[in-house]
């Protein structure tokens, strides 16, 4: 019996480690590449080199990456907080108080997920042209303009509603009996209980915002407002891209998301609901 458990454990760790190596390998290549000159990167050099300082210099001399990280952080953080709050409100509203009317609205909202963003880009840009003429501070070429379309997304509303389905209704009843208003219930019961859901939504929203490319590309024109992916893309715009430098820029800019994930995944601990009760 004991041997069997040990075997099981070994098998599990072996499975995890092999998987992790497979998933980590390209990232390993990224790390190694930042120390190699471009030509070795294209050759697929898998050992560290000595070109790190040169790459560092290239990145900091040819791009304004610090500024871009600032812009991206502002956008990603702002967008994440607002989006998960607004969208979870809706997810709660749709699931806890369903009605015919809401179902119709909900179905329509889901529909907005289904069209490729490329098809919305031109009309959306025209819309921001109009916004620009009344409120230039949230229109074209502003960071607010980058965020606005993502404050409320069908994706997050859908996610929160699906998770709310697993939310225990007794907790709400208890709150109601305690005389909490609907907003009180949401803020004091729903939000704390659904911590892991918020953590997952936060990770995903932050990551999507941080990596968003198409919309910022179109709406941001002044390089001072560029977000990280735009700077990286510009780095690779030549006929002879400097891959060592590109890899370094990528590594620097990947770290924040990895860190956010590492920090937030701690909320993925079983028995969260139990601790509230």
């Amino acid at each position: 019996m004991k041997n069997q458990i040990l075997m099981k454990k070994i098998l599990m760790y072996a499975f995890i480690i092999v998987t992790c190596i497979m998933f980590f390998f390209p990232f390993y290549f990224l790390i190694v590449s930042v120390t190699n000159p471009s030509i070795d990167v294209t050759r697929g050099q898998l050992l560290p080199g000595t070109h790190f300082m040169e790459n560092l210099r290239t990145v900091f001399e040819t791009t304004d990456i610090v500024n871009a990280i600032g812009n991206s952080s502002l956008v990603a953080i702002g967008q994440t907080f607002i989006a998960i709050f607004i969208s979870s409100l809706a997810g709660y509203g749709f699931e806890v108080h369903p009605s015919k009317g809401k179902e119709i609205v909900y179905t329509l909202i889901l529909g907005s997920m289904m069209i490729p963003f490329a098809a919305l880009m031109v009309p959306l840009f025209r819309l921001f042209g109009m916004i620009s003429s009344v409120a230039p501070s949230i229109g074209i070429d502003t960071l607010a303009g980058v965020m606005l379309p993502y404050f409320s997304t069908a994706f997050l509303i859908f996610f929160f509603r699906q998770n709310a389905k697993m939310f225990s209704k007794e907790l709400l009843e208890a709150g109601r009996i305690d005389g909490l208003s609907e907003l009180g219930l949401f803020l004091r019961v729903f939000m704390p209980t659904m911590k892991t859901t918020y953590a997952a939504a936060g990770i995903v929203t932050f990551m999507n915002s941080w990596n968003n490319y198409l919309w910022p590309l179109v709406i941001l024109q002044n390089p001072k407002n560029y977000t990280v992916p735009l700077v990286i893309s510009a780095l690779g715009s030549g006929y002879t891209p400097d891959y060592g430098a590109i890899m370094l820029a990528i590594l620097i800019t990947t770290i924040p998301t990895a860190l956010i994930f590492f920090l937030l995944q701690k909320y993925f601990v079983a028995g969260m609901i139990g601790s509230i009760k």
Partner: protein
Amino acid sequence: MFNKKTALTLSASALLVLTACGGGNDTEEGEGLEGATGEPDQLTVWTWDPNFNVRALEIAEETYKEDNPEFELNIVENSQDDVIQRLNTSLSSGVETGLPNIVFIEDYRAQSFLNSYPGSFVPLEEYYNVEDFADYKTKAGTYEDEVYNVPFDSGVTGLYVRTDILEEAGYTLEDVTDITWDEYVEIGKDVTEKTGIKWMTNDHNDLGIIRVMMQSSGVWLTEEDGQTPYITENESLRLGFETYKELFDSGAMNVHNDWDQFLQAFNNGEVATVPTGNWITPSITAEDSQSGDWAIAPIPRQTIEGSVNASNLGGSSIYVLNIDNNELAGEFLGSTFGSDVDFYQELATQINAIGAYEPAAEGEAYQVESEFFGGQMVNSNFAEWTQEIPEVEFGENTYAIEDILAVALQDYLNGADLNDVLESAQQQAESSL
């Protein structure tokens, strides 16, 4: 009460974030893109490639500043695909905010932009002497009898060869100079057989080499009208396919799948020749250890009447958008890219850029011998070939037809009959354009 208060605080904080972001932006506006509509001496340019286009613009800015000290050029750099995407989005939505004054457009795409957005670009003949440029360049930017471009890099092609590998197989540079594609294939098979080194490398999805062949023969994927697909009757294209298949079947061709592998192939010495545009020079010379081993011969010609040993691949021109300040943009381009011999000397010296400006070829900077290319006068040769490039009408559909042809080529390489694949490509092109 609690409800309202919380709701109020929340919406207030949301607003705050919004205005904070917007506010942060306001303070930067002075030096920002507003120049495109506001500042009288400032111009914005969209382009790609830091080592080439951007450098050229910086040199032009310096030159122009000598007489116009107030002048300022704001260069915005993105990949070519991104420039295209932004330009299309802005122009098609009719929003002028943030449009640049000047933009680089690849010659193959020029007609598509001029035709899709009539009135968005400004004719430029009045700012420079069109006659001074190679015809194939100005033709790319001519729409309804007006010239909208100032030509920039010539895109002239050459056959980059490893003379050391040639020698090993018993050939000299002379043997690959002014040859036909048939001869090129024959020598290639022999070299590959003797040395084990592939003769050239290509990506089956990139038909650039076939475009090179077609232009050297003075034809294109569409007929003179720029509209009607010209595939089944196109002798040059047909020959091009055959040449390609022969190179592939004989094993002389290395197949790469993307740009990095392309660079890698010649930097690693895996191929003996690279037939392509002159913009590849910096990538070739990036491998110092091969200095002196390379030379550049004229591109092979087809065995078709009128085909010459000169062609073009890629290459872009400069366009001015029809927004405020377009006169300044025109003057700036006209007095630098359009007419300044000294400026072109600088370009040749500093970044090895070969313009399509014919008077520039006389200058000293073109007469320099290149050590990397075994003492050849690279710039002068390219300038000379530039003047021989046949002009063709690129039309609006180069890339649309090329995607159809890429499928045809794939089928052909897999053993399908050439007539059949071209026939079906012709039909597909006709039905989709």
